């Protein structure tokens, strides 16, 4: 049952009385209606009341405009962590997937798989943070769905968001556009999200004041494209971190990439977590950090544009595309030695040796 149809039958004012989710909240009856109305639609305020979202936007009708559509599922443990929660990631992640391709994100769907026993108060916090993130990004959550599963069938809460946006005519951001000489720029420090989650999870009993970088990047991308319509491509460095994003780009463009160890921006605490657990920060996940490639003559303008936005204040150059060693990412170490930065093999595990 969709959020809309729930809302269509359940008029305003319904209040959910329970404290925790039970299977009844997924049963299609009154409990579910109350859940949808009170927890979800009252916050998301989808405009339309039919069984599907009906969308129109002037940007869609522009000549040469392309529709951009993306989907992503979010699972994170813990659900809430310093700097965000699963809801904020679910909105930012999908907004950013659209934004890095040059699209203006417009609408999102949100589907929730909820394990019975989850506290309603937690759901409310997650939903509120989704709304706040959507507002910050200037997108609407226009449709959705909820399912409840038995204890043990899911880990508290899984969220899937799909996003629709419009790529205006003439924009072509793609990894294949990157050519030797182009400059690689990141919008801020790396690895905050991965390190914050590791610390928040508690398995390693580390305490550190690190917040996830989770944030929407569409305003930053618009600022960049405004000064450099020929920016080659951008990737948000989520799972697998910067190393994976760079390897994907090198592979797609058939170019080599050289980065400079001294230029990789890292917070001291993130370095600390990495030193203790033997992790490489280049592979730590980010949720609001991207790498983009700009033609060399636009670098100053792009940096200035990025730094003028909240998400880009710490923008900095990290490297460049080269014609030697195609499809391989190489990092110049502090001593001028070079080493390959490969794709991550499996999952990065903490090590003692």
């Amino acid at each position, binding site marked *: 049952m969709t959020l809309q149809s729930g809302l269509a039958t359940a008029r305003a004012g319904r209040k959910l009385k329970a404290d925790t989710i039970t299977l009844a909240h997924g049963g299609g009856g009154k409990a579910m209606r109350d859940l949808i109305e009170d927890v979800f639609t009252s916050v998301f305020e989808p405009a339309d009341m039919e069984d599907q979202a009906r969308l129109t936007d002037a940007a869609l009708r522009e000549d040469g405009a392309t529709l951009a559509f993306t989907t992503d599922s979010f699972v994170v443990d813990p659900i809430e962590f310093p700097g965000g929660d699963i809801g904020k990631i679910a909105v930012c992640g999908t907004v950013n997937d659209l934004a890095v391709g040059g699209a203006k994100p417009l609408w999102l769907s949100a589907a929730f798989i909820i394990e019975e026993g989850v506290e309603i108060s937690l759901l409310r916090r997650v939903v509120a943070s989704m709304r706040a993130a959507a507002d910050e990004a200037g997108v609407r959550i226009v449709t959705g769905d909820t399912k409840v599963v038995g204890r043990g069938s899911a880990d508290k809460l899984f969220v899937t968001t799909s996003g629709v946006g419009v790529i205006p005519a003439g924009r072509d951001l793609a990894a294949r556009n990157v050519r030797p000489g182009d400059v690689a720029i990141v919008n801020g420090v790396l690895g905050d999200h991965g390190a914050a989650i590791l610390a928040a999870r508690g398995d*390693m009993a580390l305490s550190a004041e690190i917040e996830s970088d989770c944030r929407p990047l569409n305003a930053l991308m618009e600022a960049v494209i405004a000064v450099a319509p020929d920016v080659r491509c951008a990737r948000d460095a989520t799972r697998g971190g910067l190393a994976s994003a760079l390897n994907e780009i090198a592979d797609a463009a058939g170019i080599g990439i050289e980065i400079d160890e001294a230029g990789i921006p890292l917070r001291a605490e993130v370095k600390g977590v990495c030193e203790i657990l033997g992790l490489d920060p280049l592979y730590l996940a980010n949720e609001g950090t991207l790498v983009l490639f700009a033609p060399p003559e636009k670098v100053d303008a792009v940096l200035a544009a990025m730094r003028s936005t909240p998400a880009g204040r710490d923008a900095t150059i990290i490297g460049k595309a080269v014609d030697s060693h195609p499809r391989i990412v190489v990092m110049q170490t*502090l*001593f001028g030695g070079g080493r390959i930065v490969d794709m991550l093999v499996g999952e990065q*595990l903490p*090590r003692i*040796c």
Partner: protein
Amino acid sequence: MKYADEFRDPVAARGLLAKIEAITDAIGATADKPLHIMEICGGHTHAIFRYGLDKLTPPGIEFIHGPGCPVCVLPMSRVDECVQIAEQPGVILCTFGDAMRVPGTRKSLMQAKADGCDIRMVYSPLDALELARRNPAREVVFFGLGFETTTPSTAFSIQQAASEGLENFTVFCNHITVPPPIKALLDDPEMRLDGFVGPGHVSMVIGVRPYDFIARDYGKPIVVAGFEPLDLLQSVLMVLEQIRDGRAEVENQYARVVPDEGNPASIAACDDVYEKRDRFEWRGLGEIDASGLKIREKYAAFDAERKFGIGYGASGRSVEEPEGCRCGDVMTGRIKPLQCPQFGAGCTPETPLGALMVSSEGACAAYYQYGGARLEAAQ
């Protein structure tokens, strides 16, 4: 980071490298007739590749990557036995992340976890102790592995468990010691090593005297080294100076962390908790006399081998290495990783065939991950 960043200064590194080059020339070592310097410790192997030191040192110096990666040398039969313990009802198996991917003959711990075993990655044996306290109805087993650096932490944890009277905490002990395999390597008639970079963190526990035999009996220089790039370069320089001067001594570059006598409290705890096994298998090297530790009778209640009846060798003779795997030859310096026919073909970090591809500390994994070969091929 204090005591780390100061030892990463690139200008001093260039100064050291210039001196290293001059002495290498003075000794007359060349790419065709290189000096073979073994860094015993996998942490040093990792640092050499992470900082690209292998490419910065002159071609007259060849690093031979030693057996000091406890994960790499862990025999498959022991992984099998560990999986067997993890499969017992009620067991929570705690392990360092390093061991998760090491293949057994049946499966790795990672696969065992996926198959339903309760396997938890921990940072410290202290975390395993805490799990035992919090789960009195469960049987918490700590997968103890590592060299002398790690050995005391397990010993202290067993002593702590004993003093608290914990009845649901045991250790599956796979601790091993550094000097025996070094002696085995030096006794190998084909061995051509000119000097050693000694393991810094092992030495902070055992001190520098256990290496005396290397200088005294075999006439080889050894310099105990720290793990920052300048530490390593300075240690290589100190080894070269010994070679140039015709000396063979045990020197300590890492004196800020390594006292000559080691750490008495740790040595005492280890003496209290462990005794030597007659022999222990090293993957790629075979069985080595008196190279492994087991838990003394006194602490039998904390010994997973006794509690579960899964002893060393209980799963039969040592397991054959996969066909074509030449890890043993790499570890003894007979061939370089790239000369192994399986390297990058049948054996990659995704699907490791041999010990040295298993952990990022293993020489082959380091070559593959950071390594020059693919880069040179691409250029």
